[in-house]
């Protein structure tokens, strides 16, 4: 079974995002970019399934401009067998990415697609579900555990009330939550080797997918800030202020 793992390169989670001076977008120039943490978890899950003999190949895929190749190199260094780049300079929104993935799935015929549950830049949490819809495959989002069986996969997923286990008929789409695994680090020799591996290039035109953005971002801004608070010197003062000033207890 082949596993396809879509990956996105995003502003590193340790860096505070700021609005560009002219308010037209988010400042990314010169800032550290990394693989979306949820995609690293997805990749790790796929690699572990291959190591356990339950998958034969892990293909990583990324959509976007030439910079996304960096993310694919990281994926190769971590253990992906192949890297596919859908080259586009368009702003790619979740529906477009899902359509590109759909077209690639029809060519590659993976038994499983494992995606991150959300990308930490747009926080949309849509692409995996949209892909499952286009393929008419079953979906299990927020995965905390994956057990592949004969022709099926059992997924423990995190819900608002605890967890639940879904049994999906393969092929299927899974999206990963934080506690599925702890991704490994790429070793230096693997990073060096990954530099030399080929990246297969595709285009939206070749895949027959229209990727024009549908949603229009009119502006971005900092959210309203909280007024500065105070430090209090004792539990007694804290309680007095919560009672008399804030009136919350």
């Amino acid at each position, binding site marked *: 079974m082949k596993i396809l793992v879509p990956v996105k390169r995003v502003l590193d989670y340790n860096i505070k*995002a700021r609005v560009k001076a002219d308010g037209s977008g988010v400042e990314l120039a010169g800032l550290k970019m990394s693989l979306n943490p949820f995609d690293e978890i997805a990749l790790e899950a796929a690699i572990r399934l291959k190591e356990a003999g339950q998958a034969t190949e892990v293909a990583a895929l990324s959509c976007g401009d030439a910079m996304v190749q960096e993310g694919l190199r990281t994926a190769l260094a971590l253990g992906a067998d192949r890297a596919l780049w859908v080259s586009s300079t368009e702003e790619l929104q979740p529906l477009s990415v899902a359509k590109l993935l759909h077209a690639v799935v029809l060519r590659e015929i993976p038994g499983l697609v494992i995606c991150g549950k959300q990308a*930490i830049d747009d926080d949309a949490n849509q692409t995996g579900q949209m892909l*499952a819809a286009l393929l008419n495959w*079953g979906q299990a989002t927020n995965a905390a555990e994956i057990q592949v069986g004969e022709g099926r996969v059992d997924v423990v997923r995190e819900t608002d009330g605890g967890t639940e286990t879904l049994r999906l008929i393969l092929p299927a789409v899974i999206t990963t939550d934080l506690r599925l695994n702890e991704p490994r680090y790429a070793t230096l020799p693997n990073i060096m080797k990954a530099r030399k591996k080929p990246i297969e290039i595709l285009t939206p035109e070749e895949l027959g997918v229209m990727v024009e953005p549908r*949603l229009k*971002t009119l502006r971005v801004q900092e959210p309203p800030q909280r007024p500065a608070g105070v430090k209090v010197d004792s539990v007694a003062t804290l309680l007095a202020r919560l009672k008399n000033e804030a009136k919350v207890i």
Partner: protein
Amino acid sequence: MENRILLVAELGPDGHLKSSIRSLLTAAKSLKGDIDVLVWGGDTTSAVVEAQHLPGIRQVLNGSGPALADGLAEMLCALVRPLARQYTHILTAATAIGKNWMPRLAALEDVAMVSDIVGVESPDTFIRPIYAGSIWATVCCPELLKLMTVRTTAFPGLEGEGMDPVTVENLPCPAALLQSTRIAVHAHAQEGRPSLENARVVVSGGRGLGSAQHYEALLGPLADELNAALGASRAAVDLGYASNDVQVGQTGKVVAPDLYIAIGISGAIQHLAGMQTSRVIVAINKDPDAPIFAVADYGLVGDLNILVPELTAALRK
């Protein structure tokens, strides 16, 4: 053209309508149009009656049957899709369930969807947080069918009752699918405390608690004194101090109680994303430079092992 709005409600484990529907009503009011409410589940008997009395709605749609009991995305799409194009807007809460099915419906209908809105500027322009809430984007959605999940903490619940109960239309329950089935549920017992989503006070613990035993022994009595729900940082959940469903943050739950007490939590941006619109924030942390103090109305610097029992004891008096 008059807008036609569908709000898809959620039921609690007790079969009652969740209060999030009232936040959806508030969001829908600014969309200006007729509002229908869809109630779905394995048994919707009480929820349908509750929905019939919601203020300002036109009618209730009822999707009830065994195939809907598990809330699978595939089934919810099968229920909602046949009606979807009768509406200009479909809204549901940005819960684990809403985030699961709505993007699936969006792709089936070939429309771009807007996630997690915190504001409505006009019937086609919405505000949504990006980058863990450190930035807000104003987004125009030109689709004829606008699909949105709503961050309910950003919309105060619409109060009141309708004069007369509105009519109910029963929908056919879709046939079960083989593609996916739910084979087990592991519900996390709340131990008599209010739920995180509805609590007026939330007591939240982080890595600073040091162990699961400390988390419960220190935070439990404080929560009980305040009739509060317990919450946690990701670190506390990862370390097994608390259950995954009480994680607050970018990738957990978003809460906005009257009082949020962060104990032994550093205040990473991913945590702030889930609590920074709380009315009053208190932080207890031994590190005076912890970022949590930047959003706290009241900060107490010191060892939580001493301060928390002291606070609980003082409240008891």
